[in-house]
């Protein structure tokens, strides 16, 4: 490390003509360049042009976050110093074969990796002592630098102690699987759905596939209507999805965006914006279905042939014919016709707009509907998914060119669901958690009885109350002594990112010991006892980055590990030695070997779409150079080319053989190509869905789409809904993905804070009623917490609805209980719903005057620099 600083300084002094580092950048952005600033003067453009980038090397650099995109990111490295970044320029750019350009976050990667607030040394909380010490000081205690030996001895000792007290069940590993703990009998884990809300089980049971199939982006251009439901790909699926949508529009499709907020996507693409209140989309859809049925606009032939449960004549075997969707909509048995007026009273959308939208959707063929997961991140969110799919099926847009009833999000949005190129396996053998031998994200087997773990939303209650739900087995007792959260990829910042942060802080202050690893002092680490400094991906041997259906990205090591940072693998191997566990069993493969294995087993689709073939040619010389175990193989590109480009992108052109139309086989021959549902058809009435939701043990789900008021939905903003009397928390708050960060990652980066101020958005009418004005700091309160934020007034917000971006780094004052960062989870409560989804978008709040000091802009705040 010292060497790197020395080189950086020499570089700046000797090569005064190039370096553009300003003193401010030195102070805030880089450890590699800290030191005297005298040499760091940027010169005029003449000299700069002469110098140019004739030296230095562009290296493909990881952008490893769970942001919603997957793009190419490169770093210019000169003499060991990262000078600047760029994105994809590996081939000429065109809409058919577009470059994969990174976003504002990716372009700030250097600021994150080399930030002055990187964690540098192992450290412990000053007032921690075996047993916990002064637990109430977690989150505000001083940090003490310790040696790696001391840190590892403490952690190993605490693991032994917790296991002696309560076995594997005494340690909570949370969402992040620990191979070390799994090798020692496992640990308590948490499961459920975050990103996708209530979608997974609905997709699996009604459609027969999870994830849902989607058609190829070239086929999207055949649509005459594109409905984007609750999605803002401009900000939440960074990279090409929004650009692909633009091509759909340019090809002639009309675009309708349904959203409570007139989003960046809406303003760029929408011919029409349909506002809807959060958590009420199901009501809007059911009102649309009423209009379609009353005017006989549904594709009855499609419903009769391909679906079950729409009407009494087409019910699945064994179902009560009175339970048809049609009869529910018409109010045949409950006496409540679900008219557009009925819907409007709930969702707020004008009844005439509902009729017009229903007409348009039912009569424009072919049409693509694409939903995000946001409307399903609600209490009882299944009802939205059921209603969305049902109305989609009523239009018959399944399995046809230019049509689709899709749910796609993240980097796959706008693409086919089929990966045309993928990174292979790292070759690390599975080491499952004996306490929960299933997947944790979207855990789908609640009916089994061999799992012992809890829903994300129940974590804090499990710690505080000592019990949690085991599906239909009911509540079980627990006594959690320790939280173990080694975070290899910036994920797992649960205290910030799960509902109910205030309850979470209380829970964090109850256990005896908390260890995390981190690259910066994120919220979960701030409240820990021992924090271990982790290498960022730029300091590791490399990996392939996947998730983009048409490209795979090669990331390699950019810099040596900073300060005393270590890889998570090293930490667990060292702990294993102290705990008498074989480190080879825990982490048998170094990262470089894993990287090589991924490359060797990467596959790419054959140009004639007849299967997959190896992507990379590997020679004996490559293997020798890499110093890894492997075999030579023939692939499409050489390892050298892959490394130099930093990416492989499947060549695409209009009319190529790779165009896939989702569910076409089913549409062409539903008898021969049955879906993986109970009936083999699309299930508008779906008992399997009701059964599985029941098995989780939280809420019940009717077999057809019905609207039931969610907890903390629109209805709960009233003291008396029928009389129209508003209650204590009269506003609905939803959250959105903010370009300032990837969930909570990057929130510390000042240039992103400057660009995106974490403002609280409200309609001017709601502000006027409260005497609030643009830009002032306001106090936001909920049943669960308080936050302050600068107010932004905008007609783009639906009245009665407010929003701000999720993921701000909690900055809570214990005295007042106020979070000045405006983390949305400081305002959300924990709620158990459906399949353990996190219902962030059903949350009710009040907003009022703030009489304290106004907030300064976030980018001027002190960074969390520990040492």
């Amino acid at each position: 490390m010292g060497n790197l600083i020395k080189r950086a300084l020499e570089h700046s002094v000797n090569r005064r003509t190039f370096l553009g580092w300003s003193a401010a950048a030195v102070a805030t952005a880089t450890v590699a360049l800290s030191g005297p600033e005298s040499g760091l003067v940027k010169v005029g453009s003449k000299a700069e042009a002469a110098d140019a980038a004739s030296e230095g090397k562009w290296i493909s650099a990881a952008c490893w976050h769970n942001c919603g995109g997957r793009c190419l990111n490169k770093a210019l490295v000169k003499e060991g110093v990262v000078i600047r970044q760029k994105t994809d320029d590996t081939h000429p750019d065109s809409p058919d074969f577009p470059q994969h350009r990174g976003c504002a976050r990716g372009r700030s990667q250097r600021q994150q990796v080399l930030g002055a607030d990187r964690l540098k040394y192992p450290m412990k909380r000053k007032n921690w002592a075996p047993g916990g010490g002064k637990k109430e000081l977690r989150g505000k205690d001083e940090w003490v630098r310790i040696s790696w030996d001391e840190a590892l001895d403490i952690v190993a000792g605490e693991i032994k102690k917790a296991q002696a007290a309560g076995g594997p069940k005494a340690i909570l590993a949370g969402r992040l699987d620990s191979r070390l703990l799994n090798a020692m009998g496992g640990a308590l884990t948490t499961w459920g759905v975050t990103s996708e809300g209530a979608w997974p089980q609905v997709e699996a049971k009604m459609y027969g596939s999870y994830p849902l199939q989607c058609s190829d982006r070239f086929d999207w251009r055949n649509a005459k209507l594109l409905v984007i439901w609750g999605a803002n790909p401009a900000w939440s699926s960074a990279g090409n999805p929004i650009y692909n949508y633009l091509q759909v529009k340019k090809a002639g499709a009309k675009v309708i965006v349904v959203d409570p907020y007139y989003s960046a996507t809406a303003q760029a693409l929408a011919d029409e914006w349909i506002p809807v209140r959060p958590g009420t989309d199901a009501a809007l859809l059911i009102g649309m279905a009423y209009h379609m049925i009353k005017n006989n606009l549904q594709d009855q032939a499609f419903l009769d042939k391909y679906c079950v449960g729409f009407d009494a004549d087409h019910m699945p075997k064994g179902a009560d014919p009175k339970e048809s969707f049609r009869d529910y909509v018409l109010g045949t048995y409950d006496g409540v016709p679900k008219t557009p007026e009925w819907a409007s009273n709930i969702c707020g959308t004008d009844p005439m707009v509902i009729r017009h939208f229903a007409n348009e959707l039912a009569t424009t063929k072919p049409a693509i509907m694409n939903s995000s997961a946001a409307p399903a991140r609600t209490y009882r969110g299944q009802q939205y998914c059921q209603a969305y799919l049902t109305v989609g099926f009523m239009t018959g847009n399944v399995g046809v060119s230019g049509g689709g009833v899709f749910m796609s999000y993240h980097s796959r949005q706008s693409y086919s669901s089929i990966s045309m190129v993928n990174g292979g396996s790292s070759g690390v053998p599975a080491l499952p958690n004996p306490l929960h031998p299933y997947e944790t994200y979207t855990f789908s087997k609640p009916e089994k009885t061999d799992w012992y773990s809890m829903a994300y939303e129940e974590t804090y209650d499990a710690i505080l109350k000592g019990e949690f739900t085991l599906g239909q087995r009911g509540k079980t007792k627990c006594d959690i002594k320790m939280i173990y959260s080694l975070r290899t990829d910036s994920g797992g910042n649960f205290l910030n990112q799960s509902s109910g942060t205030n309850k979470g802080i209380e829970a964090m202050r109850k256990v005896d010991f908390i260890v995390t690893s981190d690259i910066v002092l994120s919220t979960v680490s701030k409240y820990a006892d021992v924090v271990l400094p982790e290498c960022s991906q730029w300091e590791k041997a490399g990996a392939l980055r996947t998730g983009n259906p048409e490209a795979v990205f090669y990331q390699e090591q950019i810099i040596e590990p900073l300060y005393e940072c270590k890889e998570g693998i090293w930490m667990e191997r060292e702990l294993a030695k102290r705990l008498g566990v074989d480190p080879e069993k825990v982490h048998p493969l170094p990262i470089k070997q894993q990287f090589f294995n991924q490359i060797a087993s990467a596959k790419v689709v054959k140009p004639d779409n007849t299967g997959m073939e190896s992507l990379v040619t590997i020679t004996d010389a490559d293997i020798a150079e890499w110093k890894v175990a492997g075999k030579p193989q023939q692939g499409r590109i050489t390892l050298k080319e892959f490394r130099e480009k930093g990416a492989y992108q499947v060549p695409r052109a209009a009319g190529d053989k790779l165009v896939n139309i989702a569910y076409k086989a089913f549409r062409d021959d539903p008898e021969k190509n049955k879906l993986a549902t109970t009936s083999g058809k699309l299930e508008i009435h779906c008992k399997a869905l009701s059964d599985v939701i029941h098995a989780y043990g939280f809420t019940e789900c009717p077999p057809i789409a019905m609207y039931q008021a969610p907890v903390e939905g629109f209805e709960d903003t009233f003291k008396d809904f029928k009389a129209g009397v508003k209650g204590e928390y009269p506003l609905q708050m939803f959250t959105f993905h903010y370009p300032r960060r990837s969930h909570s990652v990057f929130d510390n980066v000042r240039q992103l804070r400057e660009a995106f101020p974490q403002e609280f958005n409200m309609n001017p009418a709601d502000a006027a009623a409260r005497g609030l004005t643009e830009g002032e700091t306001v106090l936001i309160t909920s049943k669960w917490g308080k936050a302050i934020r600068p107010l932004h007034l905008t007609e783009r917000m639906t009245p009665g609805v407010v929003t701000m971006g999720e993921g701000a780094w909690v900055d809570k004052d214990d005295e007042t209980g106020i979070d000045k960062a405006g983390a949305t989870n400081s305002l959300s409560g924990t709620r158990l719903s459906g399949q353990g989804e996190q219902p962030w978008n059903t949350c009710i709040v009040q907003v009022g005057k703030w009489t304290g000091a106004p907030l300064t802009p976030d980018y001027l705040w002190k960074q969390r620099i520990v040492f």
Partner: protein
Amino acid sequence: MAQKGFYFDQTVCIGCKTCQISCKDKNNVAPGVLFRTVHTFEGGKFPKPWAYFISIGCNHCENPRCVQNCPTGAMHKRAEDGLVVVDQDVCIGCKYCTWSCPYSAPQYLEEKGVVGKCDGCVDLTAKGGNPTCVDSCIMRVLEFGDLAELKKKHPGVQVVEGMPDPSLTGPSIIIKAKPEARK
């Protein structure tokens, strides 16, 4: 001299600010200093609101006020391509340019005591490349090149609601404007 300039297609800009951030990365400027900025404009009335963005750096004006008001000659307009650049070895940090530019293009760099600004990424464009902002754009709404060529290729305007009167300086920019943004 072939005057260089920017084209901006406002109709599909998504306000993602990748241009602003990639510019900061390229120029290594601290928070508080922006050589390119994305501004948001909003209006209308629910349920018919509107919104648009303006991405703007230096417009390398025909009559740059910053050059006219520079007492040292540090700020100058290049004969070969009309780019307005500052020689930081000559600049004395008097800030006259920062006060006279209607677009806030020249920015005072506190820690260096001189002015910096968008120079059209001359180091990149000299080699036939684009300025960083152009090549970073997710929606491909920015272009850079000979102004006359850009005008031919893209019929557009020099000003939209929210920008200063173009007759002040003659900005080298062509904008495809959203209906709500048209003056």
